[in-house]
């Protein structure tokens, strides 16, 4: 192994808060060698971001570090460096990329100016050389039209482009260490794959060390050499990536893997980790995972296990501290086998040629100068009790489809037929159909009114639909719903801000269930949640479907969740459905080149370092869709005819696909 560029020893970072000192990072040690990637994995609140910020010294001044804590960059101890000296290190020796590319760039300067500014601060290059170097950097991060990009302002760039620019800025000082804090979480899978391969390429060229912070085990499998799993401020498992994915040893790591949804777990409930992360203000004396661990015994409660080497990996668990024969362990409870039986199968909802166009207005009299064709001719049908997944990149119109089905966005043309009743053009009759169709939103923090109690939130639909006459009956229903979605009864009088993200999503589900719908549209209900919480919500959705025979339209870009939940999958690209069929079939043998690219972009936990074959380029603007097949500019199999006209439907083995590859001329 080459010499380490970053050595963190016994890092303790305590943050003062109104309730007391938060032990956000508690005795964390690791090293990163040149050209190596260490992935710091953990759920939100595990302290991974605080660790990264401690290294870059980006925390508030009132933070306390442990006495014997050391962060050695080469042989400089960053914790003992004054801020003036630290400024020289940040940007020059440590580059940082943040999660949100939208807010990391200054909107009033061009991209070129922002890169040149960093170069001016950290290099001695001449003005002309700086300009040249900035273009080189942008080229290195895979931006095609470098000259144009230099002139652009951040708002003119897409999310993926912005993140590339952020990487270019972080690389400007040619750092030895790059800290990437969830660099691809806000991006689509296709763009994520592109950004990850750019990072890998640059790392090889410059032989930097990368500290990658992520909660996505797939991304870790793809790019990391070393993995450190954090839980409640401590590293609980530290191992080479291949070893970790082959044989995770800590019970927490094991259960994280078990809670990941996938195609072959379809008939089981996902494993859920009960309980929640302990308070970091007053952490338990023993193992911090003990309260949630299925193997825990009395020692775990009282004595904090040390990181112990077991061959190639280090584990913080009493199971591995002494000769503890693993056969004595209690066997994990059998997972419930669920066979999905759809008894009745009548068409619940059918959508014909739905279009939603948003006019672009300009000028004093607000003339219509163009149309954004967000949804451009979508046909769908949903059977009672089944789950239809709508998959696609952000901006492809899947959320607009959801909203126009519920008439939250008026449809421009087309028909939405629910049980033989036309919904799009009968505004007055619509209200009574509202109770049949419900929606769950992505962001659990925006979907609940912060000024209403949980009772009021859940009872809102009951009142609006005049379903229950008396207050008492209404309260009974609210309590029953709370129980159904797995929330404690005391929740009824509390307010949304007192709940965690997963609990809020449960409240949102209870609100939708209150009016006893037949069908729920789930708009990325788990994408804002941690893996273990995602498992809980996915399980809940699956259970509710079993109990109540609900039909779901499940909108997601998370292929793993889709493969676990969906019966049928429809792939959307730029306002149209390009492929549709049974879930197992579409996911196993994708026909459309876009679906193929999309599935290949998804990093897989079991996949190891696979060679990424991501979809090239980015989603074109729905205001100016490409001529012919919308996917033709990005398609690896493009033919002359693709650029001329949009391909018609073709049906192969029950799989609908719109591509000229499958049409015999």
């Amino acid at each position, binding site marked *: 192994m080459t010499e380490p560029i970053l050595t963190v020893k016994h890092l303790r970072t305590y943050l003062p808060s109104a309730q007391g000192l938060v032990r956000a990072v508690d005795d964390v040690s690791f090293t990163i060698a040149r050209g190596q990637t260490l992935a710091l994995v953990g759920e939100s609140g595990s302290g991974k971001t605080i660790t990264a910020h401690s290294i870059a010294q980006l925390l508030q001044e009132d933070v306390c570090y442990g006495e014997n804590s050391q962060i050695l960059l080469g042989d400089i101890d960053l914790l003992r460096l004054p801020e003036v000296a630290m400024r020289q290190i940040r940007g020059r020796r440590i580059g940082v990329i943040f999660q949100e590319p939208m807010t990391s760039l200054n909107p009033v300067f061009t991209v070129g100016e922002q890169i040149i500014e960093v170069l001016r601060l950290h290099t001695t290059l001449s003005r002309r050389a700086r300009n040249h170097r900035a273009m080189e950097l942008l080229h290195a991060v895979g931006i095609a039209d470098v000259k144009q990009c230099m002139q652009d302002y951040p708002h003119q760039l897409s999310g993926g482009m912005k993140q590339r620019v952020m990487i270019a800025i972080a690389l400007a000082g040619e750092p030895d260490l790059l800290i990437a804090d969830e660099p691809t979480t806000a991006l689509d899978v296709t763009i994520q794959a592109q950004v990850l391969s750019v990072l890998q390429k640059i790392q090889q060229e410059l032989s930097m060390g990368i500290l990658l912070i992520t909660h996505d085990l797939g991304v870790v499998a793809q790019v990391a050499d070393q993995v450190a799993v954090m839980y409640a401020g401590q590293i609980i498992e530290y191992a080479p990536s291949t070893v970790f994915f082959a044989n995770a040893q800590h019970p927490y790591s094991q259960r994280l893997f078990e809670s990941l949804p996938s195609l072959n777990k379809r008939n089981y409930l996902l494993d859920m980790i009960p309980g929640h992360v302990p308070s970091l203000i007053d952490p338990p004396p023993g193992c911090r995972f003990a309260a949630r661990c299925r193997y825990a015994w009395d020692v775990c409660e009282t004595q904090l296990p040390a990181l112990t080497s077991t061959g190639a990996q280090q584990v913080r668990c009493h199971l591995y501290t002494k000769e503890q024969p693993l056969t004595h362990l209690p066997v994990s409870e059998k997972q419930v086998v669920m066979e999905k039986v759809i008894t009745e199968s009548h068409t619940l909802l059918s959508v014909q040629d739905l279009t939603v166009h948003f006019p672009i207005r300009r000028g004093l009299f607000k003339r219509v100068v163009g149309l954004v064709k967000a949804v451009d001719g979508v046909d769908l049908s949903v059977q009672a009790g089944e789950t239809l997944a709508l998959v696609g990149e952000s901006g492809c119109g899947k959320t607009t489809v959801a909203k126009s089905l519920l008439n939250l966005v008026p449809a421009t043309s087309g028909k939405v037929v629910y049980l033989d009743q036309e919904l799009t053009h009968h505004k007055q009759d619509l209200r009574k159909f509202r109770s049949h169709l419900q929606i769950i939103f992505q962001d659990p923090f*925006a979907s609940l009114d912060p000024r209403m109690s949980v009772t009021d939130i859940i009872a809102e639909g009951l009142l609006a*639909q005049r379903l229950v006459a008396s207050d008492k009956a209404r309260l009974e229903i609210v309590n029953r719903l709370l129980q159904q979605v797995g929330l404690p009864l005391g929740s009824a009088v509390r307010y*949304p801000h007192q709940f965690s993200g997963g609990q809020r999503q449960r409240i949102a589900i209870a609100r939708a269930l209150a009016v006893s719908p037949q069908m729920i549209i789930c708009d990325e209900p788990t994408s804002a949640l941690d893996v273990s919480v995602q498992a809980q919500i996915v399980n809940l959705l699956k259970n509710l479907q079993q109990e109540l025979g609900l039909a779901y339209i499940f909108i997601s870009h998370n292929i793993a969740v889709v493969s676990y939940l969906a019966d049928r999958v429809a792939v959307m690209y730029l306002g149209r459905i390009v492929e549709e069929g049974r879930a197992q079939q579409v996911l196993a043998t994708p026909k459309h080149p876009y679906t193929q690219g999309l599935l290949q972009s998804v990093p897989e936990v079991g996949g190891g370092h696979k060679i990424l074959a991501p979809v090239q380029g980015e989603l074109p603007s729905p205001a100016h869709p490409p001529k012919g097949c919308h996917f033709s500019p990005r398609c690896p199999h493009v033919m002359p005819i693709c650029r001329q006209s949009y391909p018609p439907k073709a049906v192969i083995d029950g799989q609908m696909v719109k591509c000229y590859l499958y049409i015999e001329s």
Partner: protein
Amino acid sequence: MMPFKIDILWTDAVFFVLLASIFILIFFQRKQMKHARWTQVFKNKVGMSSAVVLFFYLCIAFLDSLHFRPELSQRLPNQETLYATQVESVLDLILSPLDVQMETTYAAPFATTSFAEEPHLVQGQVVYDFEPLRYTAEHIPPDTPTLTEISHIMRAALPLTGLLTAVTLVVIFFLVTLGSPTRIKALFIRIIRPAPRGVCWRTFMITWVLMLFLCTTLYYLSRHYHIFGTDKIGQDVFYQAVKSIRTGVMIGTLTTLVMLPFALLMGTLAGYFRGVIDDVIQYTYMTLSSIPGILLIAASVLILEVFMNQHAQWFASTAARADARLFALCVILGLTSWTSLCRLIRAETLKLRELDYVLAAQALGVRNLMIILKHIFPNLLHIILITIVLDFSGLVLAEAVLSYIGVGVDPSMQSFGNMINSARLELAREPTVWWPLAAAFIFMFVLVLAANLFADTVRDALDPRKAG
């Protein structure tokens, strides 16, 4: 037959209705109030003490709004009772004879002699000398040092302070506990040992006693001295400042009352429904706000003045006339100043209507009116509150500016604006007469500060994310 005739002026009527509706609201909602989030205000020390200070200001404004005309001693031959043309308030009655006791000209605070030397004829020769003041001379024994005398008076005020404290606290505690002995016991325990998240009864007690002490002391001192000196025509500045409180409170509250419905209605309608409604409302307030505000107000006030002069017979007394002008000024200020709040509310509503919880409500089939009432209004509340309080202080100041260009309240009416306006010349003369400005400043400062602090705690209390 009562020896006076009650005279309810326009602003009095509106003010009483406002107070009464607040009272009724509290009375009928007292059960729900226990859990209402805004009661958190009283669990905050700053909130509690600023509320007490504001309450005292409101009390003074209330006392000054109880107007009447005293009976005259002369009678017509047909035995009909005659009432004075001069309208007085209960506050005047309490403070008398401050309103009629005039010096010849300026006198410094706590002075016993006139501020400037005045000419006398002594044995046929003009001698310049400091004259003893009429009012203080009546009450102060000559040749006592001022400080000793002040401390005497303050000590004399203590029994009254004690009495008032005892009486008011007994009444308040009875109202709070409704006479239940267990609750009284609990209350006293909480005063001695405040609960960490309970109502700040101790803070309430301290502020209450301090304010009562301040009021009685000032009252006793005003019996003997001109606390804040006198102005050019020899009128007591302390009396003027106390009387100005009502004008300030009236302009602050009534203008908001006029402005609020416009801003709220137009803002939410424009933001929620968009389209044509939005266009019409936007063009209206754009047009209105593109006319300079002062010009619009000045024009309206001047038209009003001409109108009032033409119908002089409508007003029974000068006070009624001045009051009608104050009322009209509030309406005019309200009608010209709703645009900025309306714009804020529209923008916030535009943001709120796109939020998922509003979409969820639409998906549940909740009617638009209910969505506005249940989701939009409560989430606008903090903006409204902050704007109201910022406007409150702004309006008190606007009144000063308007008085300066002669379109404010009636010159015969005491107001902070009129006081500040006349201080312009007094500051320019040598030696400087600083006390009218200082008095106006202190009274206004305390009022605006208390209102700001109060609004701050109300906003925090209404924010459920901070409630914990």
